[in-house]
């Protein structure tokens, strides 16, 4: 398919974090003048793979070749020198300095800096690649899109030949996205190899020459864009449908309505209505960034509804949240385990008490010994490792931390559980464990499962609602085989009927 030699190739790259195989035997080639998209759900291992290519992580096994020669990158600097550069989602810029100073940092023309000459040379560089920027502007005055251009210029100035972008359009306006893609094409025309990570099907179809799909740490498919007829096909290829095990899911008769949402409107959300019954799992499936976060923030009490009604356990939002019930109330399992669900520097006991302190108080006093006993019980019941209740939250792997969080949230026998991507980044064993716990919790709770992983939705849910651009495309029982087959195209926002 290619006659030229790849600029960089990956052969059999493996990387594990503890028991989690983030990348498993990945081989990819990057050719000059080509734009390659790495497509996959969150946690599929895209970022890990690119971090190894950019030198900030080292593979456990496998070879990276630059122009056929095997290399080992032990720091980003090595990768730089080999002509590989990465634009991270979080820019690494000096805000108080000018564009030119940021680009020149570490790669100045000489010992002395002449502002006028610097501006001129950066302007020339930018023009070559069709990048619009004022070299004399301070970075703090720039939009996110312009800051990204500064990062690109840094790489171009270094004459990087492989440029990696981690979800480059996440922070851009549509106009800026257009300009970025124009720059992509200019760079490709000048024989650079562009790699970008994305989970947006539309933009992948628009700009990529080649597409590689990652799922659960493996490249499941790699093909040219021309070979894909449309977004729908791409969506079904991205989502896949291979699961080793089927969860045992005994049917439970749904109970009373625990959550009722009527015409809810907040920023980023179209009027939304649905209800959740006790003993029921409603999965909200969708590609991240389609309004799931906004919805969850309202239901978890972080953000007030602007319009419409939200009733939780029979009470309105305003009645419920100032004094949520201590037990049989609402439990929230956030996606961000290390930031929102736990405090990394507190012990496991303190992390347990963070949300469950109400049931461990007597008068004004906190019953730490009871908290410790409960922590120990969760540790043994859920097999949390390391099993030291005084260990800091930071010392636990994602899966173990998640087990602790779930154990903690279930302590209060909640009647409503909101779980956001509860198995993201977990290995298969931990994933199945979490799923089993959630299914068990149906005894006393209605569960709202927000997930980007269709398999997860199919494994757990009684009903699936697919979310796209702030509204439900459809909501159907999981037994509706016709609709289930169309989830991919619903997620991609393709008209499907």
């Amino acid at each position, binding site marked *: 398919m290619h006659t030229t030699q790849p600029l960089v190739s990956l052969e059999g790259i493996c990387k594990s974090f503890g028991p989690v195989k983030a990348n498993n035997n990945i081989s990819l080639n990057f050719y000059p003048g080509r734009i390659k998209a790495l497509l996959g759900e969150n946690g599929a291992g895209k970022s890990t793979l690119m971090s190894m290519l950019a030198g900030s992580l080292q593979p456990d096994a496998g070879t990276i070749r630059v122009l056929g020669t095997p290399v080992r990158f032990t720091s980003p600097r090595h990768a730089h020198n080999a002509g590989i550069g990465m634009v991270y989602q979080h820019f690494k810029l000096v805000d*108080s300095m000018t564009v030119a100073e940021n680009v020149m940092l570490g*790669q100045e023309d000489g010992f002395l800096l002449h502002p006028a000459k610097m501006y001129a040379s950066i302007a020339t560089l930018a023009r070559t690649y069709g990048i619009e920027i004022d070299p004399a502007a301070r970075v703090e005055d720039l939009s996110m899109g312009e800051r990204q251009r500064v990062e690109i210029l840094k790489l171009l100035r270094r004459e990087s030949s492989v440029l990696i972008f981690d979800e480059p359009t996440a922070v851009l306006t549509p106009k800026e996205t257009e300009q970025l893609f124009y720059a992509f094409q200019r760079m490709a025309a000048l024989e650079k190899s562009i790699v970008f990570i994305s989970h947006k099907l539309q933009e992948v179809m628009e700009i990529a020459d080649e597409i590689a799909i990652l799922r659960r740490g493996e490249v499941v498919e790699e093909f040219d864009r021309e070979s894909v007829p449309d977004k729908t096909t791409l969506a079904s290829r991205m989502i896949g449908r291979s699961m080793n095990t089927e969860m045992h899911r005994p049917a439970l008769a749904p109970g009373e309505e625990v959550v009722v949402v009527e015409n809810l409107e907040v920023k980023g959300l179209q009027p939304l209505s649905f209800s959740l019954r006790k003993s029921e799992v409603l999965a909200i499936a969708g590609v991240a960034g389609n309004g799931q976060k906004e919805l969850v923030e309202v239901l978890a009490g972080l953000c007030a509804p602007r319009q419409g009604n939200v009733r939780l356990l029979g009470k309105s939002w305003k009645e419920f949240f100032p004094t949520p019930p201590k037990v049989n109330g609402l439990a929230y399992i956030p996606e961000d385990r290390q930031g929102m669900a736990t405090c990394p520097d507190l012990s496991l006991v303190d992390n347990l008490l963070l949300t469950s302190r109400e049931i461990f108080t007597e008068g004004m006093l906190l019953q730490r010994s009871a908290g410790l006993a409960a922590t120990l019980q969760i540790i043994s019941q859920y097999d949390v490792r390391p099993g030291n209740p005084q260990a800091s939250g930071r010392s636990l792997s994602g899966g173990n931390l998640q087990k602790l969080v779930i154990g903690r949230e279930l302590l209060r026998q909640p009647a409503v559980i909101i779980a956001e991507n509860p198995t993201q980044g977990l290995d298969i064993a931990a994933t199945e464990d979490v799923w089993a716990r959630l299914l068990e919790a149906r005894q006393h709770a209605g569960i709202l499962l927000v997930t980007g992983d269709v398999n997860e939705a199919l494994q757990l849910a009684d009903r699936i609602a697919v979310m796209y651009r702030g509204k439900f495309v459809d909501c159907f029982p999981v037994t509706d085989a016709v609709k289930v087959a169309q989830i991919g195209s619903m997620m991609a926002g393709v008209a499907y009927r």
Partner: protein
Amino acid sequence: MTFALFLKVLFSAIEQGTPLLYATLGAIITERSGVLNLGVEGMMIVAAFAGFFGLHLTGNPWLGLLAAGIAAAFMGSLHGVVCLVFQGNQVVSGLALTILGLGLADFLGAPYIGTVTKGFNPIALPWLSSLPVLGPVLFTHDVLVYISFLLAPAAWFVLTRTRWGLALCATGENPQAVAAAGLSPLAWRWVGIVVGGFLIGCGGGYLSLASSHEWTHSISAGRGWIAIALVIFSFWRPGRAVLGAYLFCGVSAFQLRLQSAGVLQIPTWLLDMFPYLLTLLVLLLSSARGKGRAAPKALGVNLEPGA
């Protein structure tokens, strides 16, 4: 106020302001690299002793100055070991450095109190000192004053117009950006500490080599703290450091003249407060930060291990 009085005040402002200027420039360089330095007072007094002792041993004031600079750079390196190697708290380490320095200098210097030396003496620069009006005010000082005239522009030039300055200042703003550019933020912080420390030492050395020619107790007399305030006053910019140092010492000298003239019926201790009140006022005003006035963003923030 007569013009003659103004010139006299200006003359003292330059003379008294020079050690402050050295120390402030040094602290600016250290802090631009992102290392908060509250140890200036301790570094200055140890440097003052080292300068005195070096001169006492060798009889050569230049060797004394070198000893002063090295002593303060060494003190700074202790701060560096705590903050850069062991990721210690920069505030605590800086304060400890001051306490250590004050104790150390007084302990080591105790046997020499009252010892007289021959340090730097005023040299009237030929031709320049005979310029009308400002000639005698600017050009009848000792050689360290003349060096300090060149130092502030030099510091400005290095910080803003050279590769080194760019890397140093970027380290104080965003060490991750520096690492991403393939440079070592750790190395640049060490540069900031050692070079800045050397200059702070020159300021301390000035006290025992030029300001006075004898060793006394508590010779730094709080000037290190003033220097720290001046760093903030100057928004971490060398040019404004000149203004700050001379302004502070000018007000000091002015109130002393008022006291001695006995013109005003104001208690002397109120007048003594004057320069410090001014410092407070300036700090209050400058805390209304605008663009280009902010502290280096990563000031006081330790580097991530391995960065």
